[in-house]
């Protein structure tokens, strides 16, 4: 079903080839969030069309393959759903013209990839790999988001097409370096470039069809796609060069060298994928038309042969029972279809004519020769390509030739539903290689034009005469054969070196340790579970806030009041009672002293005309005493807490802060508007002489309504607290 | 007839009470303000003739507000009062007499 749908889409996209090749661009926009200027915009140009073809074509084949591969597995449905979601995300990603639309699908691929990598979720290794892939690509994703938003706000547009049109503007802006770094971070993590590359081999925990689709043909190329997409506006600068070329080159070399170290065929393929991605990124970094052309062809060629190889390795796994090539041998005769597919794909990978891989390699040399840092670049490319030749030989020759060896007793080809995909993909590599001009004209040309804005230089072809590129090809094959001949020695040397080389994964592990341990340490300190610490922190914060106000504001301080003797007596009463509360050793001493405070406060209310308040205060005081006297029968005082100077300091700072703030309030002029109104309206309009009561039940009756609600709720809450657990546990 | 009689006794009781209160306050003042406090307190138990709760209560409260004595407790059968006499020394008899021959009859005249 999904395969059929993707096939139909593939055909539809293929039908668009001539239109696009003729230089047209198809746009479709829908409003999405106009208030932010964000639309749901898609755009079909050469670049997106090529990617769309890969996504739908390879997708259809992979789906078909997966349906067969998981035929007996109950999880097939889930797998297909996830693959379909991924395909949709990937398609959306390559078609998007709107920055946010693009990001939506970008993150869509991240999440579906996470779920697919962790498909064998009962294995902890799969879960770990999924998490790693997610974390690393999400770091990039978040950086990308920042970069995209900055880019959009700098240029005033959320459309790639418009941003690209005003590329110079962007490069001239102050935000350009930040934007470029952020976007590159997104691209490099997604496309597994040094130093983020390690997640890709680890992601081989995914089922084989997933690896073939996501980790060779499509998702890992999303970063490349992004760089290509934005190279008109972001590319061409020194920073661009310095960011992409070293990273790409390093990834290329690391991938190609470590590919030889692997014994698991799938893992080996993963490292060769790193090599190819590195090469493509490097070429995009170089940025010349020739380099970009090379990158585009390499991208297509790699997608075809690598997907084929992954799928074929899956066939070996199914047919022979393992992917560990030391345990395999002589499968060519037992599994002829598989052998054919692997052989075809490997030839393309080795860059042998007339496969598309050859075309690509020629172009790569050509592009490298006419770029900055030519000598270094060409040497690196030569070395890694030679290593690729050795790897291709390894994957095609080691398991297939020699005496038959396999864990399964009688290895044989799985059925055609599994074979169809790899055969078609590998075959396509050959066919495309045989008709380079057509590919160049219909596919690569528009791609290059979309990326560079300039038409492709020259045609694609198998034969460009005897030139340096051809010489380098021959050198590649020779060197590759030499390396393959000494393969075991190289592997031993690599094995010996491995322990001494720095682990790139180290920073990730360190980051995770920092997150987990650091968060524990920070949390243990802040959310310590100790209430005294919580309270001390709260009061200290409050004190600090008040002192900020006291020190930064300006105030007119009120004059000192003249106190009558009665007022002094009341103050002494209050202060003495407070002191008694502080030093009380027994419950009764403390409560009675609190009563003293309450009485003093009530006297203040009395002195200044608040009869209702004083009465309420006293009555409440009596009730509180009654409650406390009941409750304290069952609640001990505990030993006396020792003196804590720190707490005392906080308390003093807070008390002083409050006093100063209050004094500053008293230093302002009182606005008696409300009071005057209440005095005037109390009897005349609200028919009551007790203004306080009239405020309570009329002017501000709404307060009182809420307040009695508080009291009812307090009753319920208190009773609930008293009954909770008590009644249930007793019965 | 009886009501009027009772009212009369009640009025007499009230007057007598005010007098007693004044006297007792002055007595307390004397004790409190004398340079060397002369207290020789004694717990005295007093058997009552009163029977109803109201009578006992009135007697007890009266005692508290009158010179030198303070009702501390009532026995569980409500027939004996424990009072605290501020300056009785070793002599229980006079405080006991003050109640059984002074206060209690006056109260009972009102209640019975």
């Amino acid at each position, binding site marked *: 079903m999904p395969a059929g749908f993707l096939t139909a889409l593939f055909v539809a996209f293929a039908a668009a080839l001539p239109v696009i090749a003729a230089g047209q661009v198809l746009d479709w926009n829908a409003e999405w969030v106009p208030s932010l200027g964000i639309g749901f915009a898609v755009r079909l140009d050469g670049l997106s069309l090529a990617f769309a073809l890969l996504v739908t074509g390879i997708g259809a084949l992979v789906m078909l393959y997966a349906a067969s591969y998981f035929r007996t597995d109950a999880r097939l449905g889930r797998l297909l759903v996830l693959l379909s979601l991924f395909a949709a995300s990937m398609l959306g990603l390559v078609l998007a013209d709107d920055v946010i639309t693009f990001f939506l699908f970008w993150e869509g691929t991240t999440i579906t990839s996470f779920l697919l990598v962790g498909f064998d979720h009962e294995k902890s290794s799969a879960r770990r790999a999924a998490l790693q892939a997610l974390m690393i690509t999400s770091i990039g994703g978040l950086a990308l988001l920042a970069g995209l938003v900055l880019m959009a706000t700098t240029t005033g547009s959320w459309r790639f097409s418009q941003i690209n049109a005003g590329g110079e503007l962007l490069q001239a802006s102050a935000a350009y370096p930040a934007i470029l770094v952020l976007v590159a971070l997104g691209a490099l993590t997604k496309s597994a470039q040094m130093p983020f590359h390690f997640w890709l081999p680890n992601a081989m925990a995914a089922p084989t069809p997933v690896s073939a689709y996501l980790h060779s043909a499509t998702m890992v190329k999303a970063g490349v796609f992004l760089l290509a997409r934005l190279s008109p506006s972001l590319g061409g600068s020194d920073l661009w060069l310095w960011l992409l070329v070293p990273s790409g080159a390093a990834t290329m070399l690391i991938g190609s060298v470590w590919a030889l170290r692997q014994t698991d065929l799938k893992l080996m393929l993963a490292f060769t994928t790193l090599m190819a991605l590195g090469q493509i990124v490097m070429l995009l970094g170089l940025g010349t038309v020739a380099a970009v052309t090379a990158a585009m062809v390499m991208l297509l060629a790699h997608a075809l042969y690598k997907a084929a190889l992954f799928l074929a390795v899956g066939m070996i796994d199914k047919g022979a029972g393992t992917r560990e090539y030391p345990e395999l041998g002589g499968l060519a005769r037992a599994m002829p279809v598989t052998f054919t597919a692997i052989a075809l794909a490997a030839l393309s990978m080795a860059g042998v004519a007339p496969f598309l891989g050859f075309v690509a390699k020629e172009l790569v040399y050509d592009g490298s020769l006419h770029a900055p840092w030519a000598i270094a670049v060409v040497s690196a490319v030569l070395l890694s390509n030679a290593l690729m030749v050795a790897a291709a030989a390894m994957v095609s020759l080691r398991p297939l030739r020699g005496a038959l060896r396999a864990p399964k007793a009688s290895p044989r080809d799985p059925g055609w539903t599994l074979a169809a995909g790899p055969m078609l993909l590998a075959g396509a590599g050959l066919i495309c290689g045989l008709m380079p001009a057509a590919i160049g004209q219909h596919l690569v040309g528009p791609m290059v034009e979309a990326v560079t804005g300039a038409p492709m230089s020259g045609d694609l072809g198998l034969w460009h005469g005897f030139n340096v590129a051809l010489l380098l090809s021959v050198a590649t094959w020779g060197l590759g054969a030499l390396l393959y001949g000494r393969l075991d020695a190289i592997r031993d040397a690599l094995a010996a070196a491995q322990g001494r080389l720095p682990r790139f994964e180290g920073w990730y592990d360190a980051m995770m340790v920092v997150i987990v341990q650091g968060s524990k340490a920070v949390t243990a300190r802040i959310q310590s579970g100790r209430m005294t610490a919580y309270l001390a922190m709260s009061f200290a914060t409050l004190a600090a806030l008040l002192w900020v106000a006291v020190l930064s504001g300006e105030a007119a301080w009120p004059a000192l009041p003249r106190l009558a003797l009665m007022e002094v007596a009341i103050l002494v009463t209050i202060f003495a009672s407070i002191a008694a509360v502080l030093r009380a050793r027994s419950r009764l001493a403390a409560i009675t002293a609190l009563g003293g405070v309450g009485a003093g406060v009530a006297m203040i209310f009395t002195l200044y005309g608040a009869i209702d308040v004083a009465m309420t205060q006293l009555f409440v005081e009596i009730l509180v005493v009654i409650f406390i006297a009941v409750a304290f029968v069952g609640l001990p005082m505990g030993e006396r807490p020792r003196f804590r100077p720190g707490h005392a300091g906080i308390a003093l700072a807070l008390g002083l802060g409050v006093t100063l703030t209050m004094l500053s309030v008293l230093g302002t002029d009182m606005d008696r508007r409300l009071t005057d109104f209440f005095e005037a309206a109390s009897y005349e309009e609200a028919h009551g002489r007790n203004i306080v009561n009239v405020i309570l039940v009329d002017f501000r009756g709404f307060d009182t309504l809420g307040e009695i609600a508080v009291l009812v709720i307090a009753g319920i809450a208190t009773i609930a607290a008293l009954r909770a657990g008590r009644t249930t546990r007793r019965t | 007839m009886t009501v009027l009689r009772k009212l009369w006794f009640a009025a007499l009781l009230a007057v007598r009470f*005010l007098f007693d*209160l*004044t006297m*007792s*306050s002055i007595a*307390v*003042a004397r*004790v*409190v*303000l004398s340079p060397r*406090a002369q*207290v*020789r*307190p*004694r*717990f*005295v*138990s*007093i*058997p009552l003739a009163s029977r109803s709760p109201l009578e006992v209560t009135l007697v*007890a*409260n*009266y*005692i*508290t*507000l009158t010179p*030198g004595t*303070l*009702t*501390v*407790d009532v*026995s569980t059968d409500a027939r*004996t009062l*424990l009072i*605290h006499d*501020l300056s*009785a*020394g*070793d002599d*229980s008899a006079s405080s006991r007499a003050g109640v059984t021959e002074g206060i209690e009859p006056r109260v009972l005249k009102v209640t019975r």
Partner: protein
Amino acid sequence: MSDWFAALLLVSGGFFCLVAGIGVLRLGDVYCRMHAATKAGTMGLALVALAMMVRADSLVAMVEPFAVFLFMIATAPVGAHLIGRAALRSASPVVPETSADEGCEAFDIPAKQSSES
């Protein structure tokens, strides 16, 4: 004249309140302090209320201070009784001169002559 009278009542009321205060401060045990608080305090209140009644210009203004006094003499002895009982039951210490007669065993107080101490 009535001003003078009221002033006199008032000041004597204050005096008895002060006496109550000093008594509470000076006397040696909780029972003795209660004597001061209850009697002198009530007296002080009564006198102040009386002063107010003397100065009253209406019946209501006379009745209300009297009600204050009435409520006070109704409740003060009850409070005193309860504190005394609580003190008794929690075996509050008494001044050494305190004696007790033979009837008090029922209240957990051993008979004791003051001379013995």
